[in-house]
C-alpha cells in the first residue's frame, strides 16, 4: 500500500457483546484485498468494521455481496446483529466510536427485540395464466379488450390506457386477496411482519417476517402448506435467513463539521 493512500473505516453492523476484547471475527476481501474485521466498542455494544482505502464504494455486485457476506458471517457468531446499510466509510475509528455512542440509546432498546431473531422474505408473483383467467371473469375488461383487438396501437391508444386502468384495479384487488389468504396467517406466526411495495406489476405480495431462529423450521412448514394450496396460481420466492433489515429503520444525518 502506498504511504499516501488514505484509509477509512467501513462499517458493517452493530452487535451486542459482553467482551471488550477484540474477538476473532475473520477477514473480508475488499476489492481484491484481504482486510481484517475488528470491532469498535461502547458499553455492551460494538460496531463491526474494516480498515479500507478511503474512497467511494460503488454498489456493484462484488461490493454488495462483500457487505452482505460479512453480516452473514457475523450472524453465525453473534445472535444480536443490527445491520447497517451499504457503503458507509468513516474517517477514523474515533468517528465510528462517536457514532456508536450516539446510536447507543437506540441499540439498547433494539437488542432485546432482535436477540436470536432472523428475517425471512416472501415474494408472491401471480402466474400470467391465473391473472388472465381472473380478468376474464371481469365482463367490462373483456369488452374493452375486444374493442382493442385488431386495432393498431396508435388508433386504440386511449382505450389501451383505460384497459390498463381496469387491469391495475384488478391487480390491486388480487393483492388484497393475497394479503388476507397468505400474509395474515403467516403474520400470526411471526414476531413482527412488514409489507413492502410490490416490485413489478405481477407481484402480489412483498413481505418480510421477523422470526425466532428456533421457529424457522416451523415457519418453513407453514409457508409450504400455503405454497401447496396456491402453487397453481402464484409463484413463491422465499428467502433467508436475512439480517433483520426490514425491522430496523434508523435514519441518520451526519452534518459536516
Amino acid at each position: 500500500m502506498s504511504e499516501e493512500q488514505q484509509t477509512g473505516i467501513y462499517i458493517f453492523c452493530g452487535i451486542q457483546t459482553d467482551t471488550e476484547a477484540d474477538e476473532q471475527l475473520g477477514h473480508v476481501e475488499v476489492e481484491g484485498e484481504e482486510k481484517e474485521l475488528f470491532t469498535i466498542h461502547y458499553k455492551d455494544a460494538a460496531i463491526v468494521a474494516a480498515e479500507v482505502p478511503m474512497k467511494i464504494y460503488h454498489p456493484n455486485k462484488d461490493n454488495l455481496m462483500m457487505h452482505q457476506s460479512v453480516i452473514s458471517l457475523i450472524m453465525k457468531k453473534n445472535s444480536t446483529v443490527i445491520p447497517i446499510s451499504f457503503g458507509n466509510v468513516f474517517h477514523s475509528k474515533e468517528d465510528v466510536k462517536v457514532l456508536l455512542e450516539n446510536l447507543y440509546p437506540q441499540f439498547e432498546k433494539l437488542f432485546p427485540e432482535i436477540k436470536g431473531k432472523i428475517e425471512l422474505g416472501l415474494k408472491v408473483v401471480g402466474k400470467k395464466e391465473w391473472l388472465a383467467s381472473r380478468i376474464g371473469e371481469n365482463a367490462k375488461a373483456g369488452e374493452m379488450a375486444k374493442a382493442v383487438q385488431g386495432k393498431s396501437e396508435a388508433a386504440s391508444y386511449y382505450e389501451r390506457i383505460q384497459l390498463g386502468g381496469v387491469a391495475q384495479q384488478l391487480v390491486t384487488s388480487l393483492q388484497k386477496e393475497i394479503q388476507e389468504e397468505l400474509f395474515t396467517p403467516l403474520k400470526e406466526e411471526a414476531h413482527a411482519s412488514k409489507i413492502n411495495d410490490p416490485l413489478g406489476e405481477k407481484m402480489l405480495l412483498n413481505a418480510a417476517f421477523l422470526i425466532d431462529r428456533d421457529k424457522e423450521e416451523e415457519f418453513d412448514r407453514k409457508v409450504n402448506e400455503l405454497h401447496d394450496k396456491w402453487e397453481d396460481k402464484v409463484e413463491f420466492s422465499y428467502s433467508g435467513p436475512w439480517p433483520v433489515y426490514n425491522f430496523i429503520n434508523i435514519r441518520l444525518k451526519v452534518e459536516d463539521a
Partner: protein
Amino acid sequence: MSIQKSTDSSSLAEVIDRILDKGIVIDAFVRVSLVGIEILTVEARVVIASVDTWLRYAEAVGLLSDEGQEERSGRTKGNQLSPLGM
C-alpha cells in the same frame, strides 16, 4: 418440502432490496455516488411514466399482446434510477 428457501447470498436482487436503504442508513460523509451503478438486471426498479405503467399492467394480465413491449422497454431504459433515490 415443495419449496426451498433461497439463501441470503444467492440472489443479488434480494440483497439489493435490503442493503441499500434499510437497516441503519447514514446520509452524508462519504456516501455512495450514483455513477456507475450496476443494477441493470433489476427490472423492478425501473421508474417509468404512468401511462407506460398502465399499459404494462394490461400486458401483465394478458390483455394486450406482447407486441410493442420491446419498443416500450427500449424507451424506458434511459430512465433507470438507482434505488438510492438521493
